[in-house]
């Protein structure tokens, strides 16, 4: 079988696309790439569509051993394309979303039910043909589950806690979950539609609001894509300030998650103390960057504002507090048998599933997948900073907590290094107003890698696709909960902490 490089070499190279190649390929070559994914020689980074004259589908892949990235594109004049999901399950939901949003049909797909379209829109294929919605719509068939004494528990979209909307359909035998099926899309805001034709400034503001907990990561991924498209060299100080914000975001979310997971096992003291640490990160971020979540601080070309003069002192003081308090909380977690009883061996993600789905972040790293775009792509300034990517193999809730604990330690060290090495100089480059180009960008958020694909025409966003890491994590949650008890679902769900809004876009 032809390798990825050979397949790419046969296609028509799009010169405007940077930094990795994009090639327009034939349907046969498209199928061959799907075969590479199915064989495990490449990992799917994203699969998306755009309207255009005829419509096209794009697939970003990364080589299993080489970390070479390529985008293959297939034009769809007949509004159909060979299904990738038929051979490679991680593509199934992405293809269902393409069908629902653009009306491009994946030929050979096993699951043709809509995705994201829950039957409430006025239009059908809102990003494609924009047909009026049919007057009557068929109901949604959840997958059948057969067996004696099974009962179903529908949950959501409005949940009991302060969380995002989504629907979970549990089929249970007594306490044990036989199958969980998710139905998502309640937070779908049609952001791809709003992106088309937006100015770069508005595009950046939209990107910052795809998933509020990862606003910095999304802004960096979007900026990476725009800067690649327009060949903008970002000043070193801006790179360091971005990394500072990215690590603060990681710290805030990991502190919050560690406490919240323990809270879902009714161990409130961890929640209280981790909540204090999270609040102190946000206050430090507010004092240094002028916004608690650091929204809109990263912009294409650099960063929007420099940190204040007292930032170093504020951050050093915060780091001191975290280094005093966090180890004791880790010890508390490690020494509480009743808590470990809930987290150890609960909600196991199999290593082969994590690898096949290209699960990133703590979900992948708790199941042996050693992938972090800060290391794999070494984007500045991470090429100059020392840090380790922790990996565990148990794949349970406990492992996902420990990955977060280890990442907190790494991020504390990274913030130290960033403060010590922070270069002087400008914080942004001007962007030429009428530039053209195509770019692909990746950034490591707290949850995993965020992908941004952008095409810029006359200085405006012609097309933008943003892919949340949750796309490749949500399906693994369905697999992980099987055979666990219903009462452990909140615990498992929180240990994944997938984004609803980032997935639903």
């Amino acid at each position, binding site marked *: 079988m032809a390798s990825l490089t050979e397949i790419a070499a046969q296609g028509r190279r799009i010169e405007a696309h940077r930094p990795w190649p994009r090639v327009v390929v034939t349907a046969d070559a498209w199928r061959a790439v799907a075969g590479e994914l199915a064989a495990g020689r490449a990992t799917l980074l994203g699969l998306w569509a755009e309207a255009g004259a005829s419509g096209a589908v794009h697939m970003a892949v990364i080589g299993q051993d080489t970390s070479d990235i390529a985008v293959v594109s297939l034009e769809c004049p007949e509004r159909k394309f060979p299904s990738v999901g038929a051979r490679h399950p991680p593509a199934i939901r992405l293809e269902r979303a393409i069908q629902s949003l653009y009306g491009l049909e994946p030929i050979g797909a096993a699951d043709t039910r809509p995705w994201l379209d829950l039957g409430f829109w006025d239009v059908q294929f809102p990003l494609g043909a924009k047909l009026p919605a049919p007057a009557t719509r068929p109901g949604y068939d959840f997958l059948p589950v057969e067996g004696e004494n099974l009962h179903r528990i529908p949950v959501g979209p409005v949940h009991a806690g302060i969380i995002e909307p989504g629907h979970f359909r549990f089929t249970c035998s007594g306490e044990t979950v036989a199958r969980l099926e998710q139905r998502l899309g309640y937070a779908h*805001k049609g952001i791809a539609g709003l992106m088309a034709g937006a100015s770069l400034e508005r595009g950046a503001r939209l990107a910052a609001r795809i998933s509020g907990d990862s606003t910095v990561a999304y802004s960096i991924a979007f900026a990476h894509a725009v800067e690649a498209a327009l060949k903008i060299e970002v000043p070193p100080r801006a790179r360091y300030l971005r990394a500072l914000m990215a690590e603060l975001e990681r710290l805030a979310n990991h502190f919050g998650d560690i406490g919240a997971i323990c809270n879902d096992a009714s161990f409130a003291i961890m929640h209280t103390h981790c909540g204090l640490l999270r609040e102190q990160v946000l206050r430090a971020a507010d004092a240094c960057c002028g916004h608690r979540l650091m929204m809109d601080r990263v912009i294409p070309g650099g960063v929007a504002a420099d940190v204040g003069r007292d930032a170093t002192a504020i951050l050093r003081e915060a780091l001191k507090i975290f280094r005093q308090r966090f180890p004791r909380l880790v010890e*508390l977690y490690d020494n509480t048998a009743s808590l470990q009883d809930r987290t150890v061996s609960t909600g196991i993600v199999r290593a082969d599933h994590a690898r096949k789905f290209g699960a990133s972040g703590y979900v992948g790293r708790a199941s042996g997948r050693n992938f972090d775009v800060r290391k794999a792509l070494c984007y500045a300034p991470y090429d100059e900073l020392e840090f380790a990517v922790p990996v565990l193999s148990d794949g349970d809730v406990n492992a996902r907590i420990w990955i977060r604990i280890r990442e907190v330690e790494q991020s504390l060290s990274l913030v130290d290094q960033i403060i010590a090495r922070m270069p002087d100089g400008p914080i942004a480059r001007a962007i030429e107003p009428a530039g053209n180009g195509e770019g692909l960008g990746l950034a490591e958020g707290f949850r995993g890698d965020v992908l941004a694909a952008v095409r810029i025409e006359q200085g405006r966003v012609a097309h933008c696709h943003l892919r949340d890491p949750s796309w490749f994590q949500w399906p693994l949650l369905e697999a992980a909960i099987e055979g666990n008890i219903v009462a452990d679902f909140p615990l498992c769900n929180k240990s994944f902490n997938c984004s609803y809004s980032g997935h639903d876009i």
Partner: protein
Amino acid sequence: MRQTLFESLVHGPLTEAPPTADDAALAELATSIDRLARRRLGRSLSIREVDAGSCNGCELEIHALNNAFYDLERFGLRFVASPRHADVLLVTGPVTKNMREALERTYAATPDPKWVVAVGDCAFDGGIFAGSYAVVGGVSNVVPVDLHIRGCPPSPVALLQGLLALLQCVR
């Protein structure tokens, strides 16, 4: 654990003094709260949070209200798990079309008297997502809103100011 618990006993409270109620919020509320309801509720309100398609930024800051610095429960305000137990719906997001029916049903399931607080710039008028095929744009297009707390997202202090204004009117 003993050391952590002991320190919590001897350490002074972290909880900060409450902010004053927001004037603009008081003015908005003056028209919507009737005396009968005030008498019935006394000084305590139960809040049901509904995410109607937000980016989850507002949820993060609403969560923060429960941490020891803000300690929402000292004011008699607490989050409950069901609209059946709620006096207040705290709604975030531009109200996606996919969430409209769920929001209407949640409102219908909340017993009277009830108030709706729309949190964030999206909940005010759809914010940056206004005009999309997938959003209704503003909570008041779906259910009657008594108070808007603006911000993207509003800080916990801004949320407290708005909720304290609500509490003052109910008292």
